[in-house]
């Protein structure tokens, strides 16, 4: 090993010849292999779908649609979303009425939810979405609900015409 790789001037022509022979023997022509691998690579690159879909789980309440569940209205938070995608929060009161609606930007929903849950940990979100609202707003809202570190309890309610009137009075 030692000194064997040096091109010593006195090693003469013989050593050089030996090196050449060795070098030739190691060379394998990889071109066909590279061709095949390239073909395979392009095939797999074109056929793959990398963006795996994400799933957002939604659970509807147990029981039939007609079943009525009694909820303490004091533990209810109404989340109304207008046609334009604006979010309105209103707290329920034990006597069945609710506090005035407050307009909130979608990106602030999570922090607002956390603040409200800090006061009352048993809140139930009643989601009322406008029928003309775009579907992506729904996934945005669920994103925000998941982002907030709260226990997820929600139910879907239908938007009533009176709700729409109130929302429109606040700018829709």
């Amino acid at each position: 090993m030692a000194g064997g790789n040096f091109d010593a001037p006195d090693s003469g022509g013989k050593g050089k010849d030996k090196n050449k022979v060795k070098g030739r023997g190691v060379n394998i022509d990889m071109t066909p292999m590279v061709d095949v691998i390239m073909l395979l690579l392009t095939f797999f690159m074109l056929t793959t779908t990398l963006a795996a879909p994400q799933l957002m789980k939604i659970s509807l309440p147990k029981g039939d649609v007609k079943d009525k569940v009694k909820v303490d209205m004091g533990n209810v938070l109404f989340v109304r979303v207008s046609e334009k995608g604006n979010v309105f929060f209103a707290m329920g009161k034990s006597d069945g009425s609710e506090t005035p609606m407050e307009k909130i930007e979608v990106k602030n929903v999570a922090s607002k939810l956390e603040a409200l849950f800090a006061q009352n940990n048993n809140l139930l979100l009643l989601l009322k979405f406008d029928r003309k609202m775009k579907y992506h707003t729904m996934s945005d809202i669920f994103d925000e609900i998941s982002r907030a570190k709260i226990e997820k309890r929600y139910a879907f309610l239908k938007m009533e015409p009176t709700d729409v009137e109130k929302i429109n009075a606040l700018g829709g």
Partner: protein
Amino acid sequence: MAKKVRNIKKASIHIDMTPLVDVIMLLLTFFMLTATFKAAESEAVEVSLPQSIYSDPDNKMRENDVLTLTLTDKGDVFLDVDAYKIRQKVFGDEFAIGVYHPDSTTKSEIETKGMIGNKEVKRKIVMLNKAQFEKALVDLKTTLRSVSGNSKAEFQVVVKGDKDTDYGIVEDLMESLHETQNKIFSLVTTIKQDKKE
């Protein structure tokens, strides 16, 4: 000096492909391992999914027994399952796809134009009204149970909604799902980068 130049010239004829092959091999194995093949038929209707940041890590799309509800921006709901045997039994054709148009005030796009956007749907269309749609949902589940021999088998219900679908369609769909005892379902979204954190 002259000898050295000649040597370099000779050596340059052989290009060492080993590093190239190494890199390509790595890429190849990566793509081979991550590849999930699209079944051409499962993408009967393409919609632009909404984006989301969060998803349940333990809620993954199953390989089979998936019931897909695709909502187009014009309000058509496509009902499809991944097993052709079940489709054969419920819709009467191996490649049929059910279409339900919940909004009675508008016309179904596929029924009037025969295509979605400017894309043709290559599969046999079975139009369903609300009652037929709900019956189909129940029939699909009973057929799955009889075919698989498992009396507790359930579909994984996934909703692929176009981001511009009206929520009203989703609301009607959720009502139908609730009535047919499909109380857990998932919304399919694509990943969005979270810029806030």
